[in-house]
């Protein structure tokens, strides 16, 4: 902006336009005549102005303030010249716009350099005084002219002074305005309401933020007498208002936090800062202050407090808050004489849910479990989450220990209901440990420790239950902790050893494998069985390194036995769910197989049934990955979980292992027998091998053999043995006793059961001539034992026996050995019970005592025929089944090999395609000629080089015909030399020719041509 623009703005702001100029001139009576007179003065050609300017500056420089403004002689000369020019313009006779702007500019400059009007007026005084003398000299004789000219001079100078004063005034006003503007913008910029009020707390001023922040129009603030009181929340109203007046009475400023309701109903936290306003005499005249919205701060504080005391996942109090409340409750209980109970609740096997279904599902189950538990609590009880899957419930006002039990029971029951997640149902159980103040401890830590010990006892005694703390648990808890520490060191100290339990094939009677079982050779407690440390290892995660060690040690042992000349054995190793959760199990198994050199097919991993119920993507991939390595996979403890084989269809497992709890009771408990029979049937249908563990008697073996179980393992065969003993056992083993019915096809085995010996004796005598082998038993129990080890076909039993009636006996036999033919012989008719049994199919015939000898013999003969017919059918069925199984085993192997082959071919094809592409785009001609002289390879370069005109292909043509003779001859020689050959069109090419067959089975010749640039 140049000086005139600025002056123009000033002129505009002052309202000095041509009208105003005319006005001012008119007021000063400054007319054309005056202008003429002044112009006339100028025409005198006198240098009055220079003289005045010089004199003026000489005068000025006597004043130190001015001297400071004039630094050197040069500036002084410049200023003098400016001033004389300025003075001269006064008498120039032109007083239009330009003149005005120049005058205003002078004012602006003077204001800027800080030249006060007094100096300005001084200059004019000098000017006017000087001219008074000069004019007198000039016009002294013409009085009229002298007076009029001087009058004109006065007018123009005053006109000028008027403008100058306006400029000064304008500049001052601008400064004030700017200051006000700055104040306003400062006020606007404050993120708070600024207010002033009188001594009655009526607002006299509020900044516009009041409307923005709280939504009430500003007028309401200043017009409604009790406005602040009205918007403050009722709870905060009294304290805020009273402190306001109290502090004011004491003449102090103060701070306070309170809540107000906004016009749209929200609640806003305000931090108020109030100070007093006083007049000059120090009398209090009013108040002023700030209101800052601190809602966000308050929320954050509240959240922090909440986070420190509450569990984020469930929103329940956390451990530290519960401990506080427990302390309070203990004080309260001391006063009232009541008790406080704490229930430490741990969800059983919750880890499985997290491991298998993921943390998201785990979290929602925890949150919902928390909801259910809150739902059973009384209003006075407190519940907290202790982290993980642990909850703590505190019961107060407990008068009798018995009052605790129903709540603990409710807690367990409310969690037992299924949790539905979409299509699935999850089942949870919980174990609770209870300690009671003051009975079990006097301080928080002791009570928590006691509850923890009681909870572990509940877990140990089978979970899904609650236990009250007892003193004896204390030592148990200490022991447990020690045990855990020792176990951590045991791995490093090599205190774990493996024992091996042989597994025999029922068909061949030979030992076909062993299961590796870990033992802990404890330095003090001797050999610790796995049940005592495996669950703890699972819980602490130690199972992962331990499992890896077991796997590696077992594989090394298997290889060592092979080297020692033992027959080929399959090594079975247990894998825990926890190891699966580590995600690198496949790599671990692969590495161990590689390092030990054990054939994958000789390793069998036993996985627990629960693992297969999880069916997560990662889990399926891992099972597939393991199977792909070639190791066998077995489902351990089969029958204890879902008892459903259907999920197994999705996994490539090779065998199932029937849990020993069923095997032990197959000969006595019909339910077990039925289950085992159906497991074997279903597994065979799916072409899985079945191994039974826990085989302890020959009866077990007999039952399993007769139901076509494939392998057995158990004490009857051998206990788990240290490696050397196991090797010795295997070398000594002579085979299982022959059991198959095929070996005694014609023996007819008859069982007679009666508590009266004379009856069995006479029956034996009667029936022996018919060629039966006859067994006798005096009770149902004894009969069952005989049945377990003998392939009995027909049974005759007395009805009336002391411990078990004939019908009861037969009902069991029917379930366990459904093929047997069963005849009841009764002294008198107990028709009712017997008919029922007949209707159920438990009894084939009912005969009365005394019997007709011949009739009885006929019946028995008939019964055996019936039995044998059934047996024959069964045998045929089994043969078919066995053939099918073999076939499908072969098929499966074949499929696997085909899959491998296909994979290999696919790989080769892709290599071939790559080679072809390289060949095709090689910047040299490549020609392959087979032994019959046909071109079998020709890349693009070859076609371009050798086919005239570039169209047509060499491929398939006769080399002798399509190649230039020189090339054809060269190809026929195939001398492996590089030679320069002339093509038909005169171009030359370097050529090399090679006879195939150095590295592969291919025959023929390959020729490579490169054009040589000439």
């Amino acid at each position, binding site marked *: 902006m140049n000086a005139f623009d600025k002056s123009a703005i000033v002129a505009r702001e002052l309202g000095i336009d041509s009208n105003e100029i005319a006005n001012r001139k008119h007021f000063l009576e400054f007319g054309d005549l005056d202008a003429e007179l002044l112009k006339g003065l100028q025409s005198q050609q006198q240098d009055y102005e220079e003289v005045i300017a010089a004199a003026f500056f000489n005068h000025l420089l006597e004043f130190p303030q001015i001297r400071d403004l004039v630094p050197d002689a040069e500036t002084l000369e410049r200023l003098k010249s400016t001033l004389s020019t300025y003075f001269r313009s006064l008498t120039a006779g032109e007083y239009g716009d330009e003149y005005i702007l120049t005058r205003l500019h002078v004012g602006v400059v003077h204001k800027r350099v800080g030249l006060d009007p007094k100096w300005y007026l001084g200059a004019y005084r000098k000017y006017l005084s000087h001219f008074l003398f000069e004019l007198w000299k000039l016009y002294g004789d013409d009085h009229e002219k002298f007076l009029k000219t001087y009058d004109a001079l006065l007018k123009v100078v005053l006109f000028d002074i008027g403008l100058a004063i306006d400029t000064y005034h304008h500049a001052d006003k601008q400064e004030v305005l700017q200051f006000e503007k700055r104040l306003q913008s400062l006020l606007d910029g404050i993120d708070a309401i600024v207010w002033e009020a009188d001594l009655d707390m009526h607002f006299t001023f509020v900044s516009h933020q009041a409307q923005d922040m709280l939504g009430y129009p500003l007028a309401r603030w200043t017009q409604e007498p009790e406005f602040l009181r009205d918007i403050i929340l009722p709870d905060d109203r009294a304290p805020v208002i009273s402190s306001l007046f109290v502090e004011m009475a004491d003449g102090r400023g103060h701070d306070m936090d309170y809540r107000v309701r906004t016009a749209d109903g929200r609640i806003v936290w305000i931090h108020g800062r109030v100070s007093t306003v006083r007049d000059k005499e120090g009398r209090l005249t009013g108040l002023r202050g700030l209101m800052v919205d601190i809602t966000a701060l308050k929320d954050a504080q509240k959240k922090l407090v909440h986070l420190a005391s509450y569990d984020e996942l469930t929103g329940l109090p956390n451990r530290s808050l519960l401990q506080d409340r427990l302390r309070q409750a203990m004080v309260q209980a001391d006063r009232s004489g009541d008790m406080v109970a704490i229930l430490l609740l741990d969800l059983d096997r919750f880890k499985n849910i997290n491991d298998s279904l993921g943390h998201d599902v785990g979290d929602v189950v925890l949150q919902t479990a928390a*909801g259910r538990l809150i739902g*059973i609590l009384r209003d006075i009880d407190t519940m907290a989450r202790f982290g993980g899957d642990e909850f703590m419930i505190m019961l107060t006002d407990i008068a009798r220990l018995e009052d605790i039990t129903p709540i603990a029971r409710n807690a367990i029951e409310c969690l037992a209901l299924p949790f*539905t*997640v979409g299509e699935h149902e999850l089942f949870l159980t919980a174990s609770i440990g209870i300690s009671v103040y003051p009975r079990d401890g006097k301080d928080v830590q002791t009570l928590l420790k006691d509850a923890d010990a009681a909870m572990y006892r509940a877990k140990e005694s089978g979970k899904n239950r609650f236990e009250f703390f007892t003193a004896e648990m204390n030592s148990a808890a200490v022991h447990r902790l020690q045990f855990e520490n020792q176990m951590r060191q045991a791995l490093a100290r090599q205190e774990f050893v493996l024992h091996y339990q042989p597994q025999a094939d029922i068909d061949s009677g030979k030992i076909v494998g062993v299961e590796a079982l870990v033992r802990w050779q404890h330095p003090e407690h001797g050999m610790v069985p796995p049940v005592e440390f495996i669950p703890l290892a699972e819980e602490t995660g130690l199972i992962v390194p331990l499992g890896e060690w077991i796997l590696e040690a077992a594989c090394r042992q298997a290889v060592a036995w092979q080297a020692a000349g033992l027959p080929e054995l399959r090594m079975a190793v247990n894998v825990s769910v926890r190891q699966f959760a580590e995600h690198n199990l496949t790599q671990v198994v692969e590495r161990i197989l590689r390092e030990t050199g054990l054939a994958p097919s000789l390793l069998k991993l036993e996985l627990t049934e629960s693992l297969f119920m999880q069916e997560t993507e990662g889990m399926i991939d891992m099972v597939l990955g393991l199977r792909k390595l070639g190791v066998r996979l077995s489902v351990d403890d089969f029958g204890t979980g879902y008892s459903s084989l259907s999920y197994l269809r999705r996994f490539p497992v090779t065998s199932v292992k029937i849990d020993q709890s069923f095997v032990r009771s197959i000969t006595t408990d019909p339910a077990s027998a039925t289950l085992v029979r159906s497991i074997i049937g279903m597994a065979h249908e799916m072409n899985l091998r079945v191994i039974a563990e826990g085989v302890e008697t020959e009866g077990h073996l007999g039952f399993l053999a007769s139901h076509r179980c494939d392998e057995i393992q158990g004490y009857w065969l051998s206990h788990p043995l240290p490696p050397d003993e196991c090797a010795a056992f295997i070398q000594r083993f002579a085979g299982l006793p022959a059991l198959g019915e095929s070996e005694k096809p014609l023996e007819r085995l008859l069982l007679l059961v009666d508590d009266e010996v004379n009856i069995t004796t006479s029956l034996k005598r009667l029936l022996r001539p018919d060629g039966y082998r006859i067994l006798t038993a005096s009770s149902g129990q004894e009969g069952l034992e005989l049945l377990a080890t003998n392939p009995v076909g027909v049974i005759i039993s007395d009805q009336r026996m002391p411990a078990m009636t004939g019908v009861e006996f037969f009902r069991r036999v029917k379930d366990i050995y459904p093929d047997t033919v069963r005849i009841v012989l009764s002294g008198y008719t107990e028709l009712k019970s017997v008919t029922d049994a007949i209707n159920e199919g438990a009894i084939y015939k009912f005969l009365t005592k005394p019997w007709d000898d011949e009739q009885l013999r006929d019946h028995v003969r008939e019964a055996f025929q019936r039995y044998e017919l059934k047996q024959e059918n069964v045998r045929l069925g089994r043969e078919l089944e066995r053939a099918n199984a073999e076939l499908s085993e072969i098929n499966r192997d074949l499929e696997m090999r085909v899959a491998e082959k296909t994979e290999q071919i696919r790989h080769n094809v892709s290599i071939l395609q790559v080679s072809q592409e390289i060949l095709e785009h090689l910047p040299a001609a490549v020609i392959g000629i087979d032994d019959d002289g046909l071109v079998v390879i020709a890349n693009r370069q070859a076609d371009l080089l050798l086919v005239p005109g570039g169209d047509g292909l060499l491929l398939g043509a006769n080399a002798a015909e399509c190649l230039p003779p020189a090339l054809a001859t060269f190809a026929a020689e195939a001398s492996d030399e590089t030679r320069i050959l002339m093509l038909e069109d005169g171009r030359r090419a370097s050529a090399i020719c090679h006879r195939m067959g150095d590295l592969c089975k291919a025959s023929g010749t390959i020729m490579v041509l490169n054009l040589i640039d000439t």
Partner: protein
Amino acid sequence: MPKILVVDDDLAVLATISLGLRRAGYHVFQVDSGLPAIQICRREKPDLAILDMNLPDITGLQVAQTIKSETSTPFIFLSAHSDEGLVKAAVEVGALGYLVKPVEVARIVPAIEVALKRADEIVQLRLGNANLGDESMLNRETDMAIGLIMERHQLDRAAAFDVLRANARGHPGGIAGLAQRLIEGEKITLTLD
């Protein structure tokens, strides 16, 4: 932090809703059956309960009746159907809203904010605080009708309200009248523009 109780027998639904509400800053209690839900209302006094209609032990309506008579917890319903009978029953029992499954978290939060505001207004009413602003927003039926329109036409809350308002022009009884007819299950064709 307002406290909200969510009740649904399917943990998958519970997880979706409560996760969204927790992220939106609410303190959430959740449970999968009715009886514990009632006890939670007694103990924890949530600011709002979201009740599934179908629960394994007692129905959502029974839960609502109990908490209405024994606590001051306001509630809205959650149902797999926008069945007229159910909607009517929900209104009769005093629900502040009705959400149709599957719920989208983005849509549920505004609906819950409205219900909370409504609940607060009702408390203010009860306290005799007359400073309530827009009267029309006080109408529970209107709110239910907006919920229905949201569900039926896949609209957000504001758009659904616009549709209701536009269609109520010249309608006897205005917005409230139209809303009443809608929640009583009358087949009314709404024009959407």
